[in-house]
């Protein structure tokens, strides 16, 4: 009997806390709704659908730091990981379209993830107003030193089945490799890892022979000679790996890279979007931001929101076509 009041007290505390949090949010929303001339009316929140410390998060933080000054308002970065970023994106899409709430988008969420998950888990880019494109993060195909593969011809000429690691289901890493191997007529077993790091470790230990990983992640081991780069999946050679051929040069049609952009809820006023774009462009010009891109092997792709939408929709259609043409299923593998 004794514990009844106690439990109620704890639940009471919890619900009081919930209330507090809710009212705090309410205050924020009301503050930002009025007219656009005095935008921004308070901190502009940039939500990231990935955990803190990952490459998407780092990009958001570098951008926010550069944009704060010209925007005239602080830009806190808030991480809301979940469902590859779909959770954060859907949440921001549902916020008032006043420019106070932004989200950092990964192209794969729009272009690749829908190929692997059910329709209601996917995100539609038309639910958002894209403000600006940011950068391109290239994928590189690496081989373990024990595999003996020095170039992609070695793989196609090996005449045997290979094992390859991906960074997960519905990622560019999986798409790029499955399509590439289909086109090159190589038999391969696709082994998904949780993210880039474990996949890279598996290649280093020759647990898998090949893997496709984001360049920034693979670079230290490439430089140390512990993995061999075979191909990059960008349409042109990557400036950080000038000696590695692109898949296109090698004769394969798999233009896969990770692109990132900033977006606001649909219906954000034009003046607000212009102001945001201007402050992002200001950020792009800072040395700190340029250095950041350089250090993380990111190729700047600072295009307009409209260009982002057209390009990403183009890639989504292209990937869908490739997958259907080659009879690949990203989900339900095996």
């Amino acid at each position, binding site marked *: 009997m004794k514990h009844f009041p106690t439990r109620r007290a704890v639940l009471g505390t919890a619900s009081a806390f919930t209330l507090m949090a809710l009212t705090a949010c309410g205050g924020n929303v009301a503050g930002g709704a009025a007219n656009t001339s005095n935008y921004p009316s308070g901190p502009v929140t940039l939500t990231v659908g990935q955990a803190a410390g990952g490459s998407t998060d780092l990009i958001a933080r570098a951008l926010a730091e550069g944009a704060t000054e010209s925007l005239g308002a602080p830009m806190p970065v808030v991480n809301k990981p979940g469902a590859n970023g779909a959770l954060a994106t859907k949440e921001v899409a549902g916020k008032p379209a006043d420019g106070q709430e932004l989200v950092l988008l990964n192209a794969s969420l729009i272009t690749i993830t829908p190929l692997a998950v059910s329709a209601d888990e996917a995100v539609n880019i038309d639910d958002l107003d894209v403000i600006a494109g940011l950068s391109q993060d290239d994928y590189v195909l690496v081989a373990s030193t024990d595999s003996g593969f020095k170039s992609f011809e070695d793989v196609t000429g090996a005449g045997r089945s290979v094992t390859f690691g991906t960074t997960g289901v519905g990622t560019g890493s999986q798409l790029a490799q499955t399509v590439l191997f289909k086109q090159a007529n190589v038999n391969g077993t696709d082994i998904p890892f949780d993210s880039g790091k474990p996949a890279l470790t*598996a290649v280093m230990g*020759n647990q898998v022979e090949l893997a496709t990983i984001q360049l920034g992640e693979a670079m230290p081991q490439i430089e140390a000679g512990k993995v061999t780069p075979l191909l990059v999946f960008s349409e042109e050679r990557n400036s950080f790996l000038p000696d590695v051929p692109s898949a296109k040069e090698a004769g394969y049609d798999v233009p896969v890279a990770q692109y990132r952009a900033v977006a606001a809820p649909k219906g954000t006023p034009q003046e607000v979007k212009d102001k945001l774009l201007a402050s992002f462009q200001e950020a792009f010009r800072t040395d700190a931001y340029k250095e950041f891109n350089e250090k993380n092997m990111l190729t700047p792709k600072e295009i307009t929101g409209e260009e982002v939408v057209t390009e990403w929709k183009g890639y989504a259609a292209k990937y869908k076509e490739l997958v259907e043409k080659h009879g690949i299923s990203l989900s339900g593998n095996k």
Partner: protein
Amino acid sequence: MDFLNPVINGFSVVLEPTNLLYCLVGVVIGMLIGVLPGLGPAATIAILLPLTYGVEPVTAIIMLAGIFYGAQYGGTITSVLLRLPGEASSVVTVFDGYQMARQGRAGTALGLAAIGSFVGGTAAIIGLTFLAPIVAGFALDFGPPEYSALALLGILLVATISSGARAKALVAAAIGLLLATVGRDMFTGESRFTFGSMQLADGIDFVPIAMGIFGLGEILYNLEERHRAAKAPSKVSNVWPSRGDLKQASGAVGRGSVLGFFLGILPGGGATIASMASYAMEKKRARQPERFGKGAPEGVAGPETANNAAATSSFIPLLTLGIPANATMALMFGALLIQGVQPGPQLVEQNPDLFWGVVNSMYIGNILLLIMSLPLVGIFVRILRVRAAILAPITALITLLGAYTINNSMFDVTLVVVFGIVGYLMKKFGFEPGPLVLAFVLGELLENSLRRSLLMFGGDATGFLTRPISATLLVVFVLVAFLPAIRTFIAKRKGGAGAVTTTNNIEEKV
């Protein structure tokens, strides 16, 4: 000498003022909660997890580790002075410690315990220092098949060796395994048990589960237990034990160090079991066993040495293999993941600063504890007078606030409340929460590695036996699984003498 370079660099990491400060904060908090009955290191670490979010990984883990081994010191104080064990691992210290206090030798008991803890802890760190690079040498040989075998063995050991009823531990472990399946299937992208909720698409996060079951669950459970009013503690004098006492206890300290070290490495082992085993061992070895329970110094020195040695050595499987040996280590695992550090065989090589920083911080922490533990006894005992009615709501609030801040998610707060209730009910009905949390952590590893391995082997399960490390681990698994049967068989034939050798066998292999 190359091997020693990172070790020495680790010391320079620890000696940074921030890290020293956090080490001090950690051991003080540890001693504090060690004194408070009920609130254990697991609960405290669970509650403080979000706090570590903003600091460097090394600093965070140094502090959390300090809490863990600091609690082993603190738990002794109340056992000796008030006959009130602050920690489960200090329960056996009550038998002789309190008797010694009644005979006016409280100071001697505390002094012996502090010295024993220091020796045990330090011995285990030295073991850790030399063992870790050896294990890490195999780092790249650890692929999916090795991890599957390791996770399998870990879950089995947790469920069979942990204290409490075995059937209930298995039930808890099974629930943990089930919870680990929630979320998007890593291999097909299919949603499992998400009930259409996006919040569950990535599965249940480890932190809300730990904070709920260990943090909130403990708080709720402790409110139900009536706290005894603090009695006036016995006077503490003559902290430095006499030569005779030291001589009498030195054997116990040595044996406790070794025993604690090995029991700490075993998954499912840890400080509590080590202290009990050491007490039993000392009593068995003694020429006059009847002295035990009446103030025998070995009865204090042995268990206190063993629990600290075990607390330290349980870091070995976590830091070198990424396999948490007990519930507190599972929380450390969570803390490292929050920091973006994947514990595993690669840790020593990829993050030498973190690894050696944490290991070396334990030397410093143990010295700090030795210096502080005796002068601060009086203050800590006074804390016992704070009423649970005041302490509990504050800690509950901190827990919920912390849960929110990790992912800025109200859903996580709800999860903590739900698992808090689950944890409370489990404790109330005699289920240990440890196996649930450990199985949850290992379940995901087991499933993913197993499926990955089978993909690698083209569906041929015999592939596990073709690789030396996974084959060895599986043999150990079979040995452990059939140990009870083997034991009864031997007992029938020889009249029950062979059990010890088989146990030793496992200790060596793991």
